[in-house]
């Protein structure tokens, strides 16, 4: 391993990590997989690495340069790796198919999404949800009983965000059904412009019933804890790597993980000033 460190960009600018260091870190990098240098430096205390997908490993159908090799190298280290993402429209199979097309060596069980988290919660509490989800996401809920619903799960579902369906959800909630939000994004970018995300509709239903939704995706603590659960790993023994300063880095830090911001994907200059981690 040490023989190969010369391949890492800016290796010399990454100082050794204080083993007592529990604050999160961020790294400035420009396109190179320098974060794995940091990962290596921390490995005495490190048990798991969580990696965001879109914007970190790939952007749509293009690989972030160096990401495949970086991942192969990480696989040789004695750490568990999981891929975590806020998705509301794509089921795990669709995500996996894309990653395989892009030559990433990843198994389905290594992927943890906000839909997985929602399903986990539904199963754990034995709920029968009304699913406001696009058809493409329903696969992740296969086998879950949905008749006579006693819970409401809201993802990004333009086809379902109509008056009739929202009324149905509202009436269930008045009868005590909990509201589970896959995430609460305000809007997202479509080819034809900006479009409303699930957040506004979740907020509306919260207001109608004077209740709070349980949000299951990033940046919620429960999301990161759930992703780490089967890895037998405490938050301070894990690192999160992603391109979203709030959802990836901020969320991980609030949970006790270290967070690393990559300057790819949705990263915009100045993002690192939106949080205040220890600078590395």
């Amino acid at each position, binding site marked *: 391993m040490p023989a190969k460190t010369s391949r890492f960009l800016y290796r010399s600018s990454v100082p050794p990590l204080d083993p007592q260091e529990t604050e999160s870190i961020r790294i400035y990098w420009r396109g190179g997989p320098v974060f794995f240098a940091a990962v290596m430096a921390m490995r005495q205390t490190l048990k798991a690495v969580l990696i965001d997908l879109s914007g970190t490993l790939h952007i749509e159908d293009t690989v972030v340069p160096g990401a495949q090799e970086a991942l192969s190298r990480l696989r040789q280290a004695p750490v568990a790796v999981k891929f975590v993402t806020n998705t509301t429209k794509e089921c795990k199979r669709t995500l996996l198919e894309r990653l395989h097309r892009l030559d990433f060596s990843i198994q389905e069980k290594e992927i943890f999404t906000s839909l997985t988290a929602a399903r986990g919660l539904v199963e754990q509490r034995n709920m029968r949800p009304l699913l406001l989800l696009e058809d493409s996401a329903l696969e992740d809920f296969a086998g879950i009983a949905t008749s006579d619903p006693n819970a409401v799960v809201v993802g990004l579902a*333009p*086809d379902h*965000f*109509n*008056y*009739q369906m*929202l*009324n149905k959800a*509202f*009436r269930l909630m*008045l009868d005590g059904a909990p509201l589970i939000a896959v995430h609460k994004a*305000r*809007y997202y970018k479509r080819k034809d*412009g*900006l*479009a*409303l*995300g699930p*957040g*506004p*509709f979740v*907020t*509306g*239903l*919260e*207001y*109608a*019933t*004077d209740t709070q939704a349980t949000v299951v995706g990033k940046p919620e603590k429960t999301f990161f804890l759930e992703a780490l659960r089967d890895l037998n790993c405490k938050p301070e023994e894990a690192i999160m790597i992603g391109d979203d300063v709030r959802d990836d880095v901020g969320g991980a830090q609030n949970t006790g993980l270290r967070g690393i911001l990559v300057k790819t994907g949705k990263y915009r200059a100045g993002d690192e000033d939106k949080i205040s981690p220890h600078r590395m």
Partner: protein
Amino acid sequence: MAEKDWKDCVKNLKGVVLDMCGVLYDSGEGGGIPIPGSVEAVKRIKASDLQLRFCTNETQATREKFVAKLQRMGFDISVSEVFSPAPAAMAILKERNLRPHLLVHDDVLPEFNNIKKTNPNCVVIGDAADKFSYQNMNDAFRVLIELEKPVLFSLGRGRYYKETDGLKLDVGVFMKALEYACDIEAEVVGKPAPMFFQSALTDMGIQPEQALMIGDDLVNDVGGAQNCGMKALQVRTGKYRPSDETHPTVTADGYVNDLAEAVDLILKHRSQ
């Protein structure tokens, strides 16, 4: 305690303000049905020395059509006695020289006939019911997010109302959705805005403490009127839910089973 308070003030009462949907009638397919005893109760107030006005957040029809519907149900009511948000919003739009993008019920559109709507610089939402589709919400959102300083007017901010086939989401829910999406705060026209109650009081030429509000919506009718300095009763009809009587922030000055009982009690205490 509260019971006694409101009955004490009845003797000095000069005017009554009534909410309409859920107090006079329950809405639903075919226009809705009168709540038993309410037609007679309105007649009894009108026959007394009390003035009467109606304050509604109804935005599914023009005032003319709405009043005509109530007249067909048997109510003694005229357009000039009814205060509704659409005409109030029109006054504000004209005063501030605004061009609205409208997300309102088709039947209330005529209220906005005499204003320019091209190249909109604000959004007005009312209870659009089935028109609250993703597409229409998105259109309103895009108008707002494009504006340098987004201006959103909401005709009321109710959470839900009752129709004969069950409870339905009201405009406030969609107002909250757009507020969250654009990180803004809407300007509410209609109940519970104090200005709205005040316009009815001004029309009667009386002070808030000389007026009593009767409504089924604890927050918008009762809370709104109380904020304006009026006393207010909640009826146990319409959207009333038993949990309203233990609400953390709003307590009515009295609770009555329905409008008929309220009018019985008011007239009885005034004659004593």
